[in-house]
């Protein structure tokens, strides 16, 4: 996987809201080395669609999210939102445009300021935007708290530590959506929560999406969660894209050996399910010095000499199913 290419983009589709092309994010380390966090990633998201981005820790999925928000601006590549390239926008225009993009973070407790009251946390974006008079501001906050399932009369005056993790995530969702965004980037929004609370938050996100006509970019390492919410799934590995497809295609017939490995590792709540040893061995290689050719080859059961020399390019192997691999799973193993 380690693929570059743009075959999976939908340039002719006029409903595309966000288009990321050839995104590169590199970080300098102290010793004149570079961390290649994201290397030539392209993706697009249609209006009203939920795109799921999955991969292990360190694959660059959160870096993609932050680069879309221009936090910080990417090293190279374009992030086109509603027809405007955010990477080239002057600061003032970027701030105004970015109101339409909001983020929800992984750790609901540390992403809320512990010193402030919940109603002020939710209102902060509105205050910065300066778009509402005081009375309407309070009404908007109360309405939003109500929508996410909190009692505004009680919750508004309290501080984050008085709430459980799931309730804090509801507050984060209220804070993001009160600004009436078009695109919400959810970065591991449920991975810190218990399964029962996770289900509540996932249902809430689906409700919010329907109610406010949101477009979502949903980042998670849990494939079952991603399948539940997504219309299209992108699998990433070490700063590159491996596979792109609709969830039903991807999960039924994965084409990339990495996707297959990820799927095999999911714990099934069924005592009769077979436990397999056929999962990925080893750890993610260092992004400071990624493997040549296909970046997945060091852990891939199908790797050949070609994989070390030539980087695979994303191609449409079946209608709507894209993969970057020299030896995809629908070919016999060499």
């Amino acid at each position, binding site marked *: 996987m380690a693929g570059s290419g743009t075959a999976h983009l939908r340039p002719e589709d006029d409903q595309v809201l966000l288009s990321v092309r050839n995104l590169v994010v590199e970080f300098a380390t102290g010793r004149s080395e570079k961390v290649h966090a994201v290397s030539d990633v392209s993706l697009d998201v249609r209006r009203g669609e939920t795109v799921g981005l999955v991969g292990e820790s360190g694959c660059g999925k959160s870096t993609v999210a932050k680069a879309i928000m221009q936090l910080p601006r990417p090293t190279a590549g374009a992030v086109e939102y509603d027809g405007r390239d955010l990477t080239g926008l002057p600061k003032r225009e970027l701030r105004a445009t970015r109101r339409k993009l909001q983020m929800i973070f992984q750790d609901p407790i540390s992403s809320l300021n512990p010193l402030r009251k919940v109603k002020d946390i939710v209102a902060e974006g509105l205050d910065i935007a300066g778009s509402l008079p005081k009375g309407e501001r309070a009404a908007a906050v109360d309405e939003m708290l109500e929508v996410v399932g909190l009692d505004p009369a009680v919750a508004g005056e309290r501080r984050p530590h008085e709430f459980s993790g799931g309730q804090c995530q509801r507050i984060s969702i209220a804070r993001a959506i009160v600004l009436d965004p078009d695109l919400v980037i959810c970065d591991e929004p449920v991975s810190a929560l218990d399964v*029962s609370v996770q289900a509540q938050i996932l249902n809430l996100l689906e409700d919010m999406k329907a109610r406010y006509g949101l477009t979502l970019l949903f980042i998670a390492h849990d494939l*079952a969660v991603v399948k539940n919410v997504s219309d299209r799934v992108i699998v990433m590995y070490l700063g590159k894209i491996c596979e792109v497809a609709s969830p039903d295609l991807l999960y039924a017939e994965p084409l990339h050996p990495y996707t297959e490995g990820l799927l095999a590792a999911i714990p099934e709540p069924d005592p009769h399910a077979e436990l397999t040893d056929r999962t990925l061995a080893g750890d993610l290689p260092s992004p400071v010095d990624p493997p040549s050719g296909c970046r997945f080859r060091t852990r891939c059961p199908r790797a050949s000499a070609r994989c070390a020399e030539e980087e695979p390019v994303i191609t449409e192997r079946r209608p709507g199913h894209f993969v970057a691999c020299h030896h995809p799973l629908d070919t016999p193993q060499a």
Partner: protein
Amino acid sequence: MTETVIDPADPGLPPVEPDAPALVVSDLRVWFDTARGLVRAVDGVDLRVDAGRTLGVVGESGSGKSVLSRAVMNILAPSAVVLPGSRIEIEGHDTATLTKQQARHLWGARIAMVFQDPMTSLTPVLTIGRQLTETLRHHTGVDKAAALARAEELLRWVGIPEPARRLGQYPHNLSGGMRQRVGIALALSCSPRLLIADEPTTALDVTVQHQILNLLGRLQSEEGMAMILITHDLGVVAGRTDDIAVMYAGRVVEQAPTTTLFGEMRHPYTRALVRSIPRIADPSHTRLRTIPGRPPTVIDPPPGCAFAARCPHARPRCLAETPRLDGHHPGNVTPGHRHACFFPVGTPQGEQAFADNLAEGRTAAGLPIDERSVL
């Protein structure tokens, strides 16, 4: 700490009865004295783990599963009060009657623990080798060279490449999965008879989780030790345990052999937990079943079942009387299967309770329900 070097063949403990269960917990109550009142974190738990068996303990945050494991490991916070009548027996020894000397080589050697976060359970300022040899030398009294050789062997055993080089490295040099392997090597260094793994994979990626769980399973069968696997994820324990205990609000609400629990679950809470897991087999955008409300904070609990407020089967009896785990409830047929519910899932009594609530539009606790509320 003064070094008391112990003959590894005689750690000061009386001999183990060959048939003694690895762990017996009876009527364990651990309360915490807080500003808001006494929190009943563990409120009357009975458990038994036989030698070589694996018990899964499942529950949400706040259900008391970690306090239970810390009580067994004797590492409770100072504010914890273990109530009289609580009894913990490890390999047939009542832990309350052990001498200091015996206790020192029971916890950490005969019974060991793997923690959730391998970054905080290893000290960042000592090398891996130093941390491993410290335990070995303290408990088994071997010399430095022998301890280092054993440490290298342990790292190789838990699947760490280049073990000799790793001994000189610090925890921050390792990935999360590798750190958890070191945590496991540390716990297993003195060949414990019981291993408690408290959410050992919650901080890890799904691929690494799979590796670590496979590793624990392999080591357990090689060593023949008993294991308690604590988790909030029923998927993690489904294929890897002999028995499962489901905890809610400080109590075990259902306990059964693993296949029985999944096949004939009786407690509405167990069913709700299983149903809230998103399944790969379901099409995308499947509406997830949720549990209404949230777990209670157990301060001065009123009589009745702690789950009643969230339960679609709740009847007036559930609010007046606390169901006991070993009580005579409907549906208790499989040996080794116990549950604490008056109106269990899959029994005529349970179905009748739900039908009555449905007809009234709400449960006895006031929870509105309709046909979709089957949890």
